[in-house]
């Protein structure tokens, strides 16, 4: 076979292929494929015949053959698509835009999401979880925390009492802060101690946009040798950066909590306006550039003594934060009551 004959043959194959492919009723595409492109198909055989043609003429013919092969394959694929192995395409009667099966979407509460995230930050810094009861004794809630009886500092926390007495005959109370867990933990183990204790606390206060008679706190306590206020600041700054981004800065202001000395109120730089609030009053930091977020300080020697830790040997820091405040900042909630209304239209917006 010479080159001309070969080309004529190719053209004939292409012609009969196009007839087969357009046949009505449609031929089975697999059968057509076998006839033309199969191992013993017409085109395959023709390509094999190339070996008899002189080398210098062979190359362009090969290209022609391959082009024809590709064209046939494409046409076949089209045909298969129209009536493929999976069956013919169903048009019009299947509206794929109809909704899918409505798998129910649940949600975690904003407070849970916030708390989990906070606990995760502190876990990275080596803080373990500790827990304590909600109905507490005066001793753990106040006295061991350096709130002596009849001390005015007790007025800072309006207390609910219940109809139960502790072993010393005092009325039991609903814990007003998570700090009693500090005492329970220290009394239960030798230093060093590095814990956080999240949980619910109670204060006898009227409910409004920023107060609730039940709310949540996270307590932190670290006791070791040579612990200072600088360790505290680093810990809280690292935590804030984790939560609010690397630009967050922490500022300490003098404050008072009976169980720490020195005591500090901890503020974080306003990540919402980045301190550029002077012109437009930022609703979050009220134009000050700083947001008050927690209370902290060096553990008071009286607290260490109450737990039989020697203040000459051990030192530590403690901090406490309201989780509602963090949740409100993170989720952009302006009224605390929203967190206890349990409106599913609100809750289902939470992505976990």
């Amino acid at each position, binding site marked *: 076979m010479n080159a001309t004959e070969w080309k004529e043959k190719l053209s004939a194959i292409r012609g009969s292929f196009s007839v087969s492919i357009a046949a009505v009723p449609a031929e089975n595409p697999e059968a057509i494929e076998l006839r033309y492109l199969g191992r013993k198909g017409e085109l395959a055989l023709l390509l094999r015949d190339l070996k008899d043609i002189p080398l210098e003429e062979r190359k362009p013919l090969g290209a022609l053959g391959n082009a024809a092969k590709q064209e046939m394959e494409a046409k076949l694929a089209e045909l298969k698509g129209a009536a493929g192995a999976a069956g013919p395409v169903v048009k019009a009667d299947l509206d794929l835009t*109809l*909704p899918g*099966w*409505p798998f*129910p979407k*649940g*949600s*975690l*509460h904003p*407070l*849970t999401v916030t708390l*989990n995230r906070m606990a995760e930050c502190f876990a990275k*810094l*080596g803080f*373990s*979880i*500790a*827990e304590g*009861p909600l*109905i507490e004794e005066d001793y753990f809630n106040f006295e061991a925390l350096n709130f002596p*009886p*009849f001390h*005015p*500092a007790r007025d800072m926390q309006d207390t*609910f*009492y*219940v*109809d*139960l007495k502790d072993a010393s005959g005092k*009325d039991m109370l609903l814990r007003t802060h998570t700090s009693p867990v500090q005492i329970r933990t220290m009394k239960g183990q030798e230093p*060093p101690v*590095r814990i956080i204790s999240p949980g619910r606390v*109670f204060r*006898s206060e009227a409910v409004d946009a920023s107060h609730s*008679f*039940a709310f949540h706190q996270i307590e932190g306590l670290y006791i*070791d040798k*040579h612990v*200072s*206020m*600088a*360790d505290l*600041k*680093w*810990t*809280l700054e690292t935590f804030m950066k984790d939560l609010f981004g690397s630009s967050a800065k*922490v*500022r*300490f202001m003098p404050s*008072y909590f*009976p169980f720490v*000395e*020195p*005591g500090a109120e901890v503020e974080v730089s306003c990540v919402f306006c980045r301190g550029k609030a002077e012109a437009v009053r930022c609703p979050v930091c009220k134009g000050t550039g700083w947001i008050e977020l927690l209370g902290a300080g060096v553990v008071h020697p009286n607290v260490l003594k109450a737990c039989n830790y020697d203040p000459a040997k051990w030192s530590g820091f403690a901090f406490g934060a309201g989780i509602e405040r963090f949740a409100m900042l993170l989720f952009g909630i302006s009224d605390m009551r929203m967190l*206890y209304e*349990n409106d*599913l239209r609100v*809750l*289902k917006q939470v992505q*976990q």
Partner: protein
Amino acid sequence: MKILYSWLSDFLENPPSPEDLAAKLGRVGLKVEEIKKTGAAFTGVSVGQILKIDKHPNADKLALVDVSDGAGTLRVVCGAKNIAVGQKIPFAKVGAVLAEGELKKAKIRGVESEGMICSAAELGLDGYDNSGILVLPDDTAVGVNAVTLFPKADYVLDVEMLPNQSHCLSHYALARELGVFYGLKLKEARIFEGSAGAAGVPVAIDAPELCTRYTAIVIKGLRGARTPDWMADRLRAMGSNPKGNILIDGSNYVMYELGQPTHCFDISKLNGPAIRARRAVAGEAFITLDNKTLKLDPGMLVIADAKNPAALAGVMGGLDTAVSDLTDEILIESARFNPPTVRLASKTTGIKSESSYRFERGTDPELTLKAARRLAWLILEAAPAAKVTQITDVCPVKYQPPVIEIAPARVNAILGTGIADGEIYACLRSFQPDLKDAKPWKFSVPSYRQDIESVWDAAEEIARYIGYDVIPAVSRMPMLPSSVTPSWAVTAELKNTLAALGFSEVYNYDFLSAKEMQACGLDAAGAVELKNPLSSDYQFMRETLLPGLLKTLRYNLNRGRESVMIFETGTTYLKKDGGKTEEVRCAGLMAGDFPEGGFWRGGQGAADFYHLKGMMTRLFAGKGGFRFETPKKAPGYFQPGLCLEMKLGGAGAGYVGKLAPAVAAAFDFKDNNIFYFEIPLACLAAAWKPEFWQKITKIKPVSPFPQNWRDLSVVLEEKHVWAELERSFSGVQDLASARLIDVYKGKNIPAGLRSLTIRFTFSSMTGTLNDADVGARMTAILDKLARNFGAKLRS
């Protein structure tokens, strides 16, 4: 606490501006929450008199008023309803500067107004009737500059006071803080510097443990002495209501000024006259200034005359010995009382006063004489004819300043700083100017700072002095692996699973009303009760999470939701053996459509028991030894017969079921198609392993050979429940699973029977099971079903 800017400035050589002052106080921990302008700051307003009132030609609600300002008559347009001819009024001419700015010439509804008759608000005055124009007293002279009629412009700073800031509870005290921390020069108040003998009214302290010092000054010849206007203005700005009597107002003034509460007794009303600081006799009666009769007890300190209590020390004076406008001779009391004693008396009697507030926080023992002399000076200014006849200062317990050794290294170790010795010394010197520079410094605590007890307290003062920003954020904390508690871990897992199943987490309060307890059939006797609830709605501690969840369901149904799946994790409380138990539980409910909103192709419906049961199965999947049981006694809030108990490794794992109709009715639901579960977390926590590798379930090998299945339909009596059948399949050789795929009753099945279709799947680890193998096993199963349950193959 309110602080008057002008008053504070009395004690400073060079007072900073109010804003600077607020910043300086804030930096040392005295937060100024508000700066408010007070007093009269307007200009261009004179006293005018209304001569004539005409109707405005173009407006019904406006009037044209002729006002005389002493120099001439001007015509103004006025909209106030309370105007009347002859009234004296503040009259602002064009150009006057008022609260809202400068007054400009204006045409109102076509008539030019040559000025304005002002209301208190327009003048920027607080505390006056603001319903119309401000009507001045009839005897006010026309033409006088009206600003002279009112207190001078000033600022009121609202400073937040923490319980340890007893040394800051006065104007002088704050000036002193500014002196210590910023080196501002102090000025002292004028005091009575004369002398008088100690004889006269005898003063005795019978309880020196409760009263460590008692200073008395006697003044005679006071009749009719009145409070000067400047003092009344300052008291008013403080929010205190001046009485006009210098003996009462002066005493309050000194308290706000110096922080020392004082009290004046009318000597003519004192038995003896004598003063005794003693414990109250049990049951002793005492009538307070505001005419309340108290029953006293020996825990309380009283200031008594020769017979009766004349004052409940530090809390309130007595009615019988109170000064009046007729009083001619007084005894000024200025004392130091034991703080807890005053606090206890205040708590027991329920009387809180500015005086008890200061005493219970601790007053300066070295201040009593100065305060009494200050009050004497103020009284003598108002009553120049009066004379001081006695000064007695009884001090059984002298103030001994505690000495604290302060080493700079210790201070830096507490703060984590590298503050230079010189700076620490400078700070301590500002408290104690005569401190010798020998380390460790021996710091004598000033009498007004008894809250400084240790080097920790001193470290705080040093940090305040230098600024808290001196503390760096650096740490050499060693790394430490962290751990969680079992309850924390299982709570997190449970919450995530429930949320993934479609439940939304809610947070409810722990408190219930008696009515809610009753509605759930709970016994109030076992519930922990609050002694001081906010209201009867919040009287009991919850025994179950059910009421909160039902309220949440109600709340959301009321807002148009048709499908609710919610859960909560929280503590429940019960009284037990004279004590209490706290149990953390996880509970949830589903009601309405499932899935929510339905599906256009069908396959949805109302939530039912089996949906929730399936969720429970999923929740406990993989937990060893989980099963459902018929409860021996289910909680009363479940519908009887429609509740299962859950067990995990033999321990109770709660209940799942349908709400009892009575509970649904009590909460006003239209039906009881509400499905509820409650799980005590202890069962999960007990099974929780702290080590990850222990928690992991080892993977079992699976058969490499093909599995085989057969469906079997049998008809049997309904009394044989599925769980019984399921148990009977155990031990069937090579049986991988027996899955119920259909339950049928009705046509072709006799009453009392039902048809169950079960798909049995077989798999062997040793080879392929052929039809004969499977057939043999199916025969065995059918035999067993026939034998045990009388089951027949369905034809």
